[in-house]
């Protein structure tokens, strides 16, 4: 055995560096989010206390938050149902973040995608399910993609910042949906209130667990979500296109010098991002609601921003964040029923989670004992 005192080759060092998970990584990826959730829940409790909720009710509220999200099969079914659109739209946003595009427009893309899916869902009669359902899903994706591509094109052609344009496109999409819901052909005949025609059974996402209990709402959308997670992972990390997306996000100048067509990439990324948001909208109308009405999105497009940030724009992280937010939403509904604490508390907790996850230094300052003393790269 010869022991060489020659330093390891740079490539070997690099491989080692990538394989070995440091304590810092574990802290950053596992510990910080867990502690962030704990701090947010504690602060949520303090806010309840400050608004005159009694201590026993706070106990009931936290209990309901737990049982309503993971306490039973039906709770888990609700969590998964709520997690699907958040994860899908969150994946779209994460894709954009990776490419350096801050798409705030998931809400608008989701609404118009949902409207398109509804339109296809009731317009084509006598189609077999294996054609009708994919057609409706595809319609949602295409419309979402086109709506987002407007912002991408504006950015590429004129430099208009996507944050402003996507916010404006959100407002426009909401008004557009309101108009469509009040007028034929979308509006349900004979109704004066804004509501769409119902999606035909052949375009509805089948429920998965009705054989266990007919009230369980979880549907095929959660499987589609998992497939989408895998697809985005593959796209981002295993394809050339994904590499172009990521490199134009981390260093646009260098990517341009490397011969990547930045304008095309911007439009393409926005379209992919919008397609996923549109799919989220289609998922809601085809899987849960069966039709569209004003506010059918439930603000999922805005919550998705938080999901993408919390998941650190990594597909698997987004899935976990989506599940967490879905659990908070399902548990929050139970909390409102059992403890009389309004569900708006959940958005406060979600906002606090994002703040703390985005500010690891703050979490370290609050829990100094949980972390190693020396922090590489920070402080």
């Amino acid at each position: 055995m010869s022991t060489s005192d020659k330093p390891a080759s740079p490539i070997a060092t690099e491989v080692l560096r990538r394989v070995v998970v440091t304590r810092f990584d574990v802290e950053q990826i596992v510990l910080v989010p867990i502690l962030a959730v704990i701090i947010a829940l504690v602060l949520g409790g303090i806010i309840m206390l400050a608004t005159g909720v009694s201590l026993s009710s706070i106990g009931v509220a936290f209990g309901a938050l737990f049982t309503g999200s993971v306490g039973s099969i039906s709770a888990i079914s609700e969590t998964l149902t709520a997690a699907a659109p958040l994860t899908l739209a969150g994946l779209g946003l994460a894709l954009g973040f990776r490419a350096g595009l801050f798409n705030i427009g998931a809400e608008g893309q989701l609404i118009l995608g949902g409207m398109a899916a509804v339109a296809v869902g009731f317009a084509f009669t006598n189609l077999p399910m294996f054609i009708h359902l994919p057609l409706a899903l595809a319609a949602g994706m295409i419309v979402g993609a086109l709506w987002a591509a407007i912002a991408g094109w504006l950015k590429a052609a004129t430099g208009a910042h996507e944050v402003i344009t996507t916010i404006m496109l959100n407002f426009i999409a909401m008004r557009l949906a309101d108009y469509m819901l009040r007028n034929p052909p979308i509006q349900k005949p004979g109704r004066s209130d804004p509501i769409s025609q119902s999606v035909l059974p052949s375009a509805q996402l089948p429920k998965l667990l009705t054989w266990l209990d007919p009230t369980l709402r979880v549907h095929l959308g959660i499987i589609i979500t998992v497939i989408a997670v895998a697809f985005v992972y593959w796209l981002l990390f295993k394809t050339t296109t994904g590499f172009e997306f990521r490199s134009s996000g981390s260093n646009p100048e260098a990517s341009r010098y490397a011969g990547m067509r930045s304008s095309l990439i911007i439009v393409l990324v926005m379209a992919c991002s919008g397609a996923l948001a549109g799919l989220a909208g289609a998922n809601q109308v085809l899987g849960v609601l069966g039709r569209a009405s004003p506010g059918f999105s439930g603000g999922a497009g805005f919550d998705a921003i938080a999901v993408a940030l919390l998941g650190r724009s990594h597909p698997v992280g987004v899935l976990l964040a989506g599940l967490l937010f879905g659990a908070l939403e399902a548990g929050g509904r139970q909390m409102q029923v059992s403890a009389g604490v309004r569900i708006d508390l959940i958005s406060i907790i979600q906002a606090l989670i994002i703040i703390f996850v985005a500010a690891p230094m703050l979490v370290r300052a609050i829990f100094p004992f949980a972390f190693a003393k020396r922090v590489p790269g920070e402080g």
Partner: protein
Amino acid sequence: MTLRDTSNAPSSLDQAKRRQTLITGWLLLALAVFVAGIFGIGLSGEADFRLALPGDMFAVPDLVVPAAPYVFVVAALLAFFGARQFARGAARTSAIFLGIGLFLVVTAFLVWATAGKSFSLTGMLESTIVRAVPIALGGLVGVLSERVAVVNIGIEGMLLSGAFTGAVAGSLLGGWGGLVAAIIVGGLMGLMLSALVITYRVDQIIAGVAINLFVLGLTSYVSSQVLTQYRWLNNAPVFRGIEIPFLSDLPVVGRVLFQQNIFVYGAAIMIAIATYYLFHTRMGLRARAVGEHPEAADTLGINVYRLRYINVTIGGMVAGFGGAWFTLGSVGRFDDNMTGGRGFIGLAAMIFGRWHPVGALLAALVFGFADSLQQKLAILQVPIPSEFLAMAPYIATIVLVAGIVGRARAPAADGKPYIKD
């Protein structure tokens, strides 16, 4: 795709400018066709704009415009402006002509909508000023923080926090108490944003989004959990208009500018002070230096962090004042999410106003005009669905941002954290 050839950077920059000029040209030509085709065809009668309101000291005659000739003159002007864009050297002035063109389109639209009817122009200008207030203040918040290179997406949440505090504290302490409390809470939001982005180095956009979510959640939660039960906590007094002696008796102008409430005067004063501070004081110069080149400013002994803290916190206080407009300045009652995106439009006003307080004010007036137009047009019974009228300000924002932004330049260090070695 024009950036493919990067070996020659200046030429690609020229190309981008050239292309933008051409886009503006095509846009103006399209507007000309639109105005002539949609508004002009079959138009007859006269548009009667009332300038005097009942109770005015001086009665001013109505402004009567022959509808069809006016619309066609506007279409011709637009076509001329559009064609001009294709000439050499048009790039420098194309932003101005786009602005004038859009203004003309709006006047043509008004004339078309009013043809054969009468419409109170003074009343609309009055509500334009009122509705521009929160947008102008939102834009000013953006200017104050982006001039020291902190991007503030959280304006919407800061406005909402001011609106909520104004309603609750105003119910408890009266109007002035509510206003002061709203300013303090807005300042705290600004302080929170600065602490997150400066001390804890949270990504600026993430911090802003989180503040929006946090304030929206907190205000909705407290209003549904507490205010629905204790209604007297959500019943604040409203500041009435103050008539400025002599000036308020002037025709048209008096009604529009000098009979408003303290929020309008306050906004005007704040914009004047901010302009003086940023461009005529030593500290303002330092603030701008921090926004352009923090390393250099630091080398010269300027405390980058402290200046950023101060500016962003003052911005938050301005947002608190602007937020109080929604409750203390108009209805006296807080409703969930009542700011309705004004903070984001303020951000657009900042960009359109080229990061200058006065520019932001002018842009806000445009948005305020669109906003009040949409309200007043319901009276005229225009054959356009109300949803499409409601979209108009947002579409206008996109057009303006797309048309202007290439020529406006953000502070160089905008959005970048500064890490002192």
